[in-house]
């Protein structure tokens, strides 16, 4: 299973890497340490070239990371800036790999491919995660499952009625229509469910009187390799185009990066426009706590069980029987497969 290299991956939430507190994470099987200096955020190979100690166990000294074992210091470019031993001369080869890193829309984006090609304008925008204008509730989970299984999970929300029967589901999803729209390498999963009764919990959280039928849409925008914005809206049932009818719109973000072939990082968030008032800050904070429960106790065990069942086999090799609701997830997989193939040519 190959990974796409020349693409921006999510490496962390902005708040996960605080000044003076390096964060270690494995991405695409490579150990990476991130830290924040006066020059911005940096990502280095998390391994001192001297005796291979993990740099993240060291401490930040000014704009450099100091190796915890013998004190060599490395700056954000990966260059060794200090050798405390002998005459202090720095061997030419004493440097660590540095990965291009950009902070945008509350996310630390990392480029795992050819640094020459790391164009920040290629990063998909998440305006709903721009902390200037939005209150954002953010959280993180690690999954012992391939990140594409995670992508499938979000691209096909028909699982809600089953996996989330007692939390997010309402048993009314069977009439929902799922369509797929491709725009360049972006794939949209558009799901519309007419005349739906939300679960009592969701009715309460959306301020709907119990038993209010709504037309609800759940639209996902996917960008490679696995970053998604889910826009959920509802409008009083019966309008020609519910997406254009006056109603409520909620924003959720689901971001996945491979840790290894069979484990993944999962960042999720929900956000509210600041101009809707400071109440929004409390709402997103509560909402993200609420969401973590089904994600952690319902989705995660399923994804990990799926992975165990699949073992190390490739998804296509197992010849999945696919349903119409799989169309968007399959398209996303195929777009990604084509990009990986093109990159390996």
């Amino acid at each position: 299973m190959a990974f796409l290299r020349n693409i921006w991956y999510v490496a962390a939430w902005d708040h996960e890497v605080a000044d003076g507190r390096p964060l270690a994470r494995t991405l695409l099987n490579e150990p990476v340490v991130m830290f924040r200096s006066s020059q911005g955020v940096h990502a280095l190979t998390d391994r001192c070239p001297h005796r291979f100690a993990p740099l993240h166990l060291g401490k930040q000294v000014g704009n450099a990371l100091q190796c915890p074992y013998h004190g060599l210091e490395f700056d954000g470019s990966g260059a060794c800036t200090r050798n405390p031993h002998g005459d202090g001369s720095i061997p030419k080869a004493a440097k660590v790999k540095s990965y291009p890193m950009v902070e945008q829309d509350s996310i630390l984006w990392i480029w795992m491919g050819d640094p020459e090609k790391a164009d920040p304008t290629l990063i998909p925008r998440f305006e709903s995660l721009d902390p200037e204008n939005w209150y954002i509730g953010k959280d993180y989970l690690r999954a012992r499952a391939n990140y594409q299984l995670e992508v499938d999970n979000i691209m096909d929300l028909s699982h809600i009625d089953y996996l989330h029967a007692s939390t997010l589901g309402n048993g009314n999803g069977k009439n929902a229509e799922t369509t797929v729209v491709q725009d360049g390498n972006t794939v949209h999963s558009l799901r519309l469910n007419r005349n739906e009764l939300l679960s009592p919990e969701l009715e309460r959280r959306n301020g709907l009187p119990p038993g209010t039928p709504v037309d609800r849409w759940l639209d996902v925008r996917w960008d490679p390799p696995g970053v998604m914005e889910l826009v959920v809206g509802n409008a009083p049932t019966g309008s020609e185009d519910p997406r254009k009818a006056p109603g409520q719109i909620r924003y959720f973000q689901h971001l996945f990066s491979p840790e290894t072939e069979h484990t993944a990082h999962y960042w999720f968030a929900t956000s509210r426009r600041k101009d809707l008032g400071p109440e929004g800050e409390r709402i997103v904070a509560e909402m993200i706590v609420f969401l973590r429960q089904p994600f952690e106790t319902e989705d995660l065990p399923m994804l990990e069980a799926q992975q165990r069942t699949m073992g190390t086999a490739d998804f296509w090799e197992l010849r999945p029987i696919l349903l119409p609701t799989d169309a968007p997830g399959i398209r996303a997989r195929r777009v990604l497969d084509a990009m990986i193939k093109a990159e390996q040519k």
Partner: protein
Amino acid sequence: MSVCRKPALAARLAYGDRSEKEPAMTLNMLVGKFRRETDDIVSIELVDADGHPLPAFSAGSHIDVHIGDGLVRQYSLCNSPADTDRYVIGVLKDPKSRGGSAALHGMLAEGLRLRIGEPRNLFPLDETADRTLLFAGGIGITPMLAMAERLKMLGRRFELHYWGRSLPRMAFLDRIAASDFKDNVRIHCDDAPEDQRLDPDDVLPNPEAGTHLYVCGPQGFIGCVLERARTRGWLESRLHKEYFGTIVSDDPAGGGAFTIRIAHTGAIIPVNPGQSAVAALAAHGIELPVSCEQGVCGTCLTRIVDGIPDHRDSYLTDDEREANAVFLPCCSRAKSECLVIDIL
């Protein structure tokens, strides 16, 4: 009249004639009389909720019926186009339907409110033809009744042939027997007298200028009639069809006939309207591997040597779609008359 009438008129004035693709304005209707025609077919009379006259319709027209839960289904109007106070539709509770007709059967009651679209006609009748043949199979009788009423009123020469499995399962026989046009009708079914158990082929004449053929009914019936007519040299311009009294253009599975040629053997395989390419190939002993059978999984991916496919799958990426080098024969069709494909 419902409040929707005026905006409809205004829209027309502002933008000229609306094409068939634009959404028609909706009308608020009440269910008037309804009648169980057979065990699984009910005829339903719809009247304006406020008692106003209804927009006129031409023979062959259908209406969109909003059944609730976002379901919209099309039904042909089967009453006389001279009626201005009601629309009548015939609804078959089809076990294979996607739920709309069964739902309508279930909630049917006098006074039930229903929202419908204004009549549209995708199966228009050439009223100037010297002779008209109406071939109806099963529930396909509905638009034919309106056509027969109209042709009789105009004093035109026509025959209506109506096929069914058995008399008790054929709707509207009483109405036909009591109609002005009863002498123009021939009923064909398995339990009819010998001389009436005729195949469409038996009553289909050779083509003659000025004669038009209209076919409506199940896909297999239409495919069979049209194939025979084409074999006998009927011109496409004189062949008219509508499936089940519903509109195929709204149905992703529907579509016209085309031909497949197998590149290395030269075998030619006709694909009938509504039949999938996979099914047509299987009927000729060529079994392609399939799994989802609805264009999601890509199992039946097939290479195209020549011709332009009409991609109806969700599997191919936009680039692959534009390249037209492969297609998914489980659901996709052809824009060109012939597709040359590369299979062994």
